[in-house]
């Protein structure tokens, strides 16, 4: 995804930009915007019946995927998450065209149309899914980190989960094993305050998720998920820690989901008010980041418009690519059941 590099070499930035170059910051802005527009397009296509099944959008949580994945990781680090996976996949470098094709059930999709929205995978990008059984991927993440340590590599695994996932047994087993064996995995709770229609206070005995780390003497921190640079900084610190010492972390990133749980669920209802949602949107991670960039005069309104245009083109290319791709051949039904058979 190319961006217009400034002619002039960017002079030293103020401290709040953490010494990141203007180019990097603008790339992150593009990444967040791409995820936002990509998801909006998905909503459209779902409405048109072109995307089937369960489709969980990332709107509102973009600062997490960009700051944590695009920002804090090396390409050979691993990422694994649950079904709300489009944004994290894109921030990890998975081709958005292939993601869109997957959503349309096409042969050119990330998994040839087999996994769908909830199961984006890309071996080359070290993106390990997209998992639809809540909590099921948590021990798997520890296993990936186990393999990295086993081989003496310095690759870490970033494992994302929702607030609701912290109440299932595998959360406990994974945290205990990761802490006990010192596995280089960073568990990230994307606390968007709700598990479908159930608020954190109605599902968890503790509302402060970092308290859950106390049962394992595990390193933990609260992160402002609406501020991409706060996400970057704190995830980066956890990643460095895991790289150097294999010590795992549990990070609670406070964020918010703009849409309904999945495309088949209402945006608001018994569980949260329209007002709450509107109010949260006033602290939009993309707008906040744009304002921050402007405050350092790193971007102009014209450049913001350019970005919009750039992203619009990319998203349209994704749809075009997906629409024009073939469906998987019938024989595919029998492939990938047993490896090499």
């Amino acid at each position, binding site marked *: 995804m190319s961006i217009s590099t400034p002619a002039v070499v960017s002079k030293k930035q103020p401290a709040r930009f953490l010494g990141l170059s203007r180019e990097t910051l603008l790339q992150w802005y593009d990444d967040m915007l791409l995820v936002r527009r990509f998801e909006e397009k998905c909503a459209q296509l779902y409405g048109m019946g072109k995307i*089937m*099944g*369960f489709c969980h959008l990332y709107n509102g949580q973009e600062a997490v995927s960009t700051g944590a994945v695009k920002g804090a990781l090396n390409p050979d680090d691993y990422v694994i998450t649950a079904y709300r996976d489009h944004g994290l996949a894109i921030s990890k470098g998975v081709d958005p065209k292939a993601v869109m094709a*997957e959503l349309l*059930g*096409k042969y050119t999709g990330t*998994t*040839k*149309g*087999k*996994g*769908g*929205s*909830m*199961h984006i995978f890309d071996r080359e990008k070290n993106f390990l899914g997209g998992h*639809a*059984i*809540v*909590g*099921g991927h948590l021990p798997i993440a520890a296993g990936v980190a186990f393999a990295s340590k086993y081989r003496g590599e310095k690759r870490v695994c970033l494992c994302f989960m929702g607030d*609701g*996932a912290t*109440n*299932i*047994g*595998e959360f406990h087993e994974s945290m205990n094993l990761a802490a006990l064996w010192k596995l280089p995995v960073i568990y990230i709770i994307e606390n968007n305050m709700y*598990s*479908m*229609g*159930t608020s954190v206070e*109605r*599902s*968890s005995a503790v509302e402060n998720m970092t308290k859950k780390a106390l049962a394992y003497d595990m390193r933990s921190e609260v992160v402002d998920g609406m501020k991409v640079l706060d996400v970057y900084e704190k995830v980066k610190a956890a990643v460095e820690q895991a790289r150097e010492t294999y010590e795992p972390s549990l990070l609670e990133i406070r964020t918010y989901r703009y849409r309904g749980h999945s495309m088949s669920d209402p945006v608001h*209802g*018994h*569980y949260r008010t329209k007002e709450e949602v509107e109010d949260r949107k006033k602290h939009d991670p993309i707008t906040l980041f744009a304002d921050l960039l402007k405050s350092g005069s790193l971007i102009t309104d014209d450049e913001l418009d350019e970005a919009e245009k750039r992203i619009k083109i990319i998203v349209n290319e994704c749809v075009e690519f997906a629409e024009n791709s073939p*469906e*998987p051949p*019938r024989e*595919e*039904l*029998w492939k990938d*059941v047993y490896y090499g058979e």
Partner: protein
Amino acid sequence: MAVVSLREALNQAMDEEMTRDDRVFLMGEEVAQYNGAYKVSQGLLAKFGAKRIVDTPIAEAGFTGIGIGAAMAGLRPIVEFMTWNFSLVAYDQIVNHAAKMLSMSGGHFHVPIVFRGPGGAAHGLGATHSQSLEALYAHIPGLKVVMPSNCRDAKGLLKTSIREENPVIFIESEVMYGDKGEIPDQEYTIPLGVGEIKREGSDVTIVSWSKVLAHVVLPSVEKLEQELGVSIEVIDPRTIKPMDYDLIVASVKKTNRLVIVEEGWPFAGVGGQITYELSKRAFDSLDAPIERVTQEDVPLPYAKVLEKASLPNFEKIKRALEAVLYKN
């Protein structure tokens, strides 16, 4: 006779039984405030309150165990799995605890509990969210497995299941919740273990249940009869365990041919068991080997073309009928 949706039929069954017996309560994810992920518990929170309509965290093993403990202590829980796929994280609780408690305790503690929710494939939900798991539960002694195919059966069987003294695995289908059908105006129940002839016929018997019966077999029968020039009898066991073998045997003694259509996987599936029992009980009546139409032996893919190719459909059933009729 009132016409209701299957969703309403199930809702009425729970409503009536909760009204009748205050030991009955409903527990599960999003069953209360959200009125159910598929709205099967619509209105029950408003009517019975948060004490009896209980929202749970995502902790299937935990709330399944709570249901079992509550049943041992005298309550009659209905535990809803948002879908049966998620019951697999609670599988040990059901198999090693609910199913064995009465026997292990030598009769001290029985477990009157209903586990219910939708099973099987919907549309584009992928491998983990499209499973027909009846064989995994019917294999286990101590459990009963119920799979209704229409509104009348659903209500009558759910009421009986709630009154049942043993753990019942009650498997619905999310794509059937909107199905409409007639139900009697006065109260009624339907006994477990008793199948029903859904359509009389004389030349060949089809045994099928739940969604694949309602959405694939029954809508295809007339066309199949015309194209094959035969009369088809359709049997719905309604209860997978205990299975109403007598009803199937009687039909096969008449038709001499049997095709089993199920949505589950083939290997060690329910159809294999029916085949074994029928080949024993009706060996001399069978003029052709029993044929089965099942989901293909693969994880169900997302893409529509592959999903379709994997599930039972008209063509596959026709081929199976041709096989038992030696028409190919």
